[in-house]
């Protein structure tokens, strides 16, 4: 049993919970995730660890209520317990001083770039942050990220906050300004987390500029320890398991079309709940 000690509504349908999970908090590194089972009858669902506090023995999870299981989790509040949490799972983000790193977060994926931005900054990188969502109310963690990033950009589909458009528009502007300039350099690495279409668009763009791009995938998982293969994705023509080989992969190698289809495997069933 893992007790929830804090809960905040960050945006409509986006919730943040701080949970007691001492062993995980002590061990987790940026990019890793946990599997949670809210109640004995619940699904096992993977959630990225958004933040942690090893001293207090807590981890922070930020999730969007997009299906039954996330809605069920959203019903729990401070004092309630999550039945099971397993972690930390997956390979941690490759953190080192690359030079300039652009971190791109879309929707609830903004929560997932937060620990990476923090670690990349700490490693000595110049970090540019680009976050985007459909509208202002869905933009989360903007103050926290603004503080960490050397340069920071926000986009919304409807223009209600920041630039009207997509995160890739900002990314394209940055690349164009590098092209025109004699003294600025291309970033050394791009890190993108968000909806599959966003990660795909970012990867397509950075591929043209040959900038190494890491994406964090969210395939469907059951055990999340490499046993079931539900999370298999094609990367560079090879089948790999998101849970143990990932969740981060080279965005230029990922078969996003297949991933989109596989994410729909259970949609009909889940919608019936």
């Amino acid at each position: 049993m893992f007790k929830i000690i804090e809960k905040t509504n960050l945006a409509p349908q986006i919730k943040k919970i701080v949970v007691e999970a001492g062993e995980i908090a002590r061990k987790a590194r940026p990019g890793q995730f946990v599997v949670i089972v809210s109640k004995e009858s619940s699904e096992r669902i993977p959630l990225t660890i958004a933040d942690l506090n090893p001293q207090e023995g807590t981890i922070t999870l930020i999730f969007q209520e997009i299906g039954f299981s996330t809605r069920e989790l959203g019903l729990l509040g401070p004092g309630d317990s999550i039945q099971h949490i397993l972690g930390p799972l997956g390979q941690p983000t490759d953190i080192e001083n690359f030079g300039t790193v652009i971190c791109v977060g879309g929707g609830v994926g903004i929560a997932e770039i937060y620990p990476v931005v923090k670690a990349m900054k700490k490693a000595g990188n110049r970090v540019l942050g680009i976050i985007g969502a459909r509208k202002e109310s869905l933009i989360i963690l903007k103050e926290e990220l603004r503080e960490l990033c050397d340069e920071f950009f926000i986009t919304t589909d409807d223009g209600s906050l920041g630039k009207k458009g997509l995160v890739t528009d900002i990314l394209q502007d940055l690349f164009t300004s590098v092209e025109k300039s004699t003294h600025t350099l291309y970033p050394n690495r791009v890190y993108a987390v968000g909806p599959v279409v966003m990660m795909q668009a970012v990867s397509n763009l950075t591929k043209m500029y040959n900038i190494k791009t890491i994406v964090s995938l969210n395939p469907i998982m059951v055990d999340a320890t490499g046993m079931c293969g539900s999370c298999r994705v094609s990367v560079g023509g090879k089948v790999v398991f998101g849970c143990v080989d990932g969740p981060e992969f080279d965005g230029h190698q990922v078969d996003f079309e297949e991933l989109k289809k596989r994410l729909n495997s259970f949609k009909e069933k889940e919608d019936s709940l």
Partner: protein
Amino acid sequence: MRNKAKQQDIGERIKNFSEVSCGYSNDQARLETERCLLCKEPLCVKGCPVGIDIPSFIRLLRENKPEEALRKIKEKNNLPAVCGRVCPQEDQCEGRCILNKKNIPINIGALERYASDYGKQSAVGSQQSAKKNNLKIAVVGSGPAGLTAAADLAKMGFLVTLFESLHSAGGVLSYGIPEFRLPKKIVAEELGYIQGLGVEIKTDILIGKTFSLNELFEKGYRAVFLGLGAGLPQFLGIPGENLDRVYSANEFLTRINLMKAYKFPEYKTPINIGKKIAVIGAGNVAFDSARCALRLGCEVSIVYRRTETEMPARIEEIENAQEEGVHLQLLTQPLRILGDDKGFVRGLECQKMKLGEPDASGRKRPLPLKDSDFVLDVDTVIVAIGQTPNPLLGKAESRIKVNPQGTIFVDENLMTSIPGVFAGGDIVTGADTVIAAMGAGKKAALAIDNYLKNQVKSAS
């Protein structure tokens, strides 16, 4: 005549997940025990990987003492209710029975099950624990190997903690073998017995991730047993395997057994299957998958490239599956899974095979028949061609020596390349039976006991 246990009616059982075999009645059990010759030099015992004193427990049953019979079994076997149900007895104890000469071996499996089902009322076992010696042992993985090692070590007096990564203990007994063959209530009772011996079970902990092996030693564990199992699903490597409604048997069975997808929406984990299912493979896991799918209301074909004779599954499961209406699509090799534009399965392209000369495994090698391609009309495919050892810990702990085929290297005492860390079961042998893993768990418990005794000796 060999007594067969009563089974649930076929028409009924294909609509539910309740146990197929009803087990022996008192009369049936007595009749079967009376057939036993109680051999002075019993061959059956030699066929048992954990060496149960079979004639003695049968004699006790004949004397109508099921509690004592169970106690006799538990001297060697910590999971009799499981083994009585899922062991391939025909290859083990029953396969060695002298009455095979007349083709009527004693139904030892059914008697073992009877003893455990009828003898369990008494508090068998709790009195067997030796005085505690305060030495802590960590057992990793709560499948048959881990449970056996944990129970035996607890009986020797060690303080045993059993670590399980999933949210329920039991390993393959929980996530793999379906309810209709091994009710989860039975698994829970066996787990309860092992906890009664003093074993502490900790779920939701993945060794290699939550704790490293070093951290276990830092926490004061004196030795570690790794019973990690064969958890990595194999795929065929044919086109179309990443289509929706293509499952590894592991995923399909885990969703149904561990996550109880057959009780959806009461349990929230879904399974998305169509009407016509092909299960590729012919081992027990393939048949378990096929019979689960059948109970979910599907038409099911087992697709196998050899014939019924070469099938690795238990005979009883093959018979049960056929009775229930599982179609055997034999001498058939899948070539490609066909998909629709939304990414879902719409057919399985196959070719016909014939059998040639025996190959390295001793089974006749399947050879393709020219121009025999055809499409099997299915909308769901389950790949059940085997599992290889779980690679997670080997990757996380570079000091663990792993063999080229993925198994963990051990010496003759089941010790790995790290002193004090032992391993056994499928992680060492590759996929094998429940009872073989239990045999390894027993052997490891003895080896750990010896190892620690020697350590204490050399320290003093």
